[in-house]
């Protein structure tokens, strides 16, 4: 089956058999219901078995699956109304980061996120969700605007990393990300980030210094993509599995390490298997969290944000 991952092949194989039997039932008139039911039960078992015990590397593959909801799909699915806003007012509009204002449960919210394409053509236009400095500067402009009008900010993180190209360097990729980190630390409005797929390094963090961080069940978030870590550490990108297993990049790891505040469950097999279900789970979590944050006085919110990041890291003192 096209688009299925290696560990999903036995399931895809059974699905194909069920389809064949159904077709046979239709054309021959032979009742095959029992056989079909038996196979479907087997599929359900196998689904349970495969997805309840994914390795970190398999999770990375699920997080990268084509067909997962993109940032714009989440926003449009979540909001009753949404206007996309463009441009950093300095250089250009970066299609790899999108943003705008939407109504979430009656509340105006500024949404920002990395935008991957839904097909190759769109992916090329959106640079596979790898932003240039102007993308981060557009995000900053929209965050300042949100602050001005006391609108909460919701950020969707889904990038392999910030674009590592010559033009990005010339225009100050480092400065753009750094400026966002500091600005987000002091933004005088509630902020929530959701890692929906890939959380790759500084490019992800550039949209991720927030009061709450949620991670989708199969998303990953780390200092570097497993392939790149393997290539740097062991000069061998095929060691990505080993790197993924060593770096504690999965949703449960992130909660355990005190980085993420919670996991948003995905439909069995990943958000791409049932987009609506995935989107509504994200919506519920946002509505609940916004209600919680909206009640806090801004000074308390900023202090809590400071304390949260202040405590990150594990070291010792001799």
């Amino acid at each position: 089956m096209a688009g299925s991952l290696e560990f999903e092949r036995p399931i895809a194989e059974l699905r194909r058999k069920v389809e064949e039997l159904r077709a046979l039932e239709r054309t021959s008139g032979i009742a095959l219901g029992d056989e079909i039911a038996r196979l479907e039960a087997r599929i359900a078992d196998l689904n349970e078995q495969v997805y309840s015990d994914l390795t970190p590397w398999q999770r990375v593959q699920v997080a990268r699956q084509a067909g997962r909801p993109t940032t714009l799909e989440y926003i449009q699915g979540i909001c009753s109304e949404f206007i996309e806003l463009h441009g950093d007012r300095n250089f250009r509009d970066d299609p790899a980061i999108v943003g705008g204002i939407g109504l979430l449960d009656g509340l105006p919210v500024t949404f920002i996120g990395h935008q991957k394409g839904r097909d190759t053509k769109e992916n090329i236009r959106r640079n596979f969700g790898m932003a240039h400095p102007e993308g981060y500067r557009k995000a900053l402009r929209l965050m300042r605007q949100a602050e001005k009008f006391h609108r909460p900010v919701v950020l969707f993180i889904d990038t392999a990393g910030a674009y590592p190209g010559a033009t990005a360097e010339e225009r100050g990729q480092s400065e753009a990300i750094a400026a966002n980190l500091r600005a987000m630390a002091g933004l005088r409005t509630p902020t929530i980030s959701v890692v929906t797929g890939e959380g790759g390094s500084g490019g992800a963090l550039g949209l991720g210094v927030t009061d709450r961080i949620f991670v989708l069940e199969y998303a990953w978030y780390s200092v570097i993509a497993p392939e790149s870590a393997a290539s740097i550490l062991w000069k061998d990108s095929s060691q990505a599995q080993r790197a993924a297993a060593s770096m504690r990049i999965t949703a449960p790891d992130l909660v355990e390490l005190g980085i993420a505040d919670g996991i948003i469950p995905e439909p069995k097999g990943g958000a791409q298997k049932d987009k609506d279900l995935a989107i509504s789970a994200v919506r519920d979590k946002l509505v609940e969290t916004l209600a919680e944050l909206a009640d806090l006085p801004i000074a308390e919110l900023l202090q809590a944000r400071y304390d949260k990041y202040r405590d990150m890291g594990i070291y010792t003192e001799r």
Partner: protein
Amino acid sequence: MLKDIFNKKRHYATIAQPPRRQERRPAATADQIPEGLFNKCPTCGALLMSKELQKHAHTCPSCGHHFPVGAQVRIELTLDAGSFVEEDAGVTSVNPLAFPEYEAKLAKAQQATALLEGAVTGCGTIGGFQARIGVMDPRFIMGSMGSAVGEKLTRAMERACAERVPLVLFTASGGARMQEGVLSLMQMAKTSVALERMHEAGVLFVTVITHPTTGGVSASFASLGDIILAEPGAMFGFAGRRVIEQTIRQTLPDDFQTAEFVLKHGMIDKVVHRMDLRDTLTSILRMHAAGGVESGR
């Protein structure tokens, strides 16, 4: 024959070598830091006596190449003699992710540098002016930032903020320390929230970019200085050269991401030779200490 003589003569004639193109600098390693009696300049090939190097603040007197220096030497070169008081020297890394081979790497770095961790912090005076100081050591696992480095720098920022004393930070880093995964990534956020407080409090933050400053360090505090200085030839950028060349499938110019290049592109304030750094920092601190106009408050 007469002609042959001329030819032969030409053969012996020495012509001044055209100035060498600045060689791409290899990443800093411990063995590059001059220790023996003689050191060879990797840029111009000059043989330099150790004493001569020391006299020139570990730069090559003939071509200006800046040799990497460790934290201890940097402090000697920068602060007024005897003024440095180290703080938080006991903060060091653990292996929070149980990452393979990390302890061995740490032990090796500690042995090579006589430091517990990749950054040294404390306070002292520069040209008579009080300053808080932080120095990242390029020899310590590539100057990478893990939880311990993040904690030390954050404490330095918090103290600077509380005492309203300027913070001068020398950066040198391959980026976030991979062996600590997302925890090292979050040190970028942790230092940035501390810098936001310093920024709000109006406390001066000066960064001095030394070779190389890249990745997560470049994309956080190194780029957040009120004033950003850099040593000549220091590499300062987000992504590594090899990664960029693979991404764009083009060879980059030799000076790409050098201090001179990023100065031209507006990313830093000034390129300063190491021999002039103390004076430049003193001048900045002096003007800063003179305060501003009352109406601006």
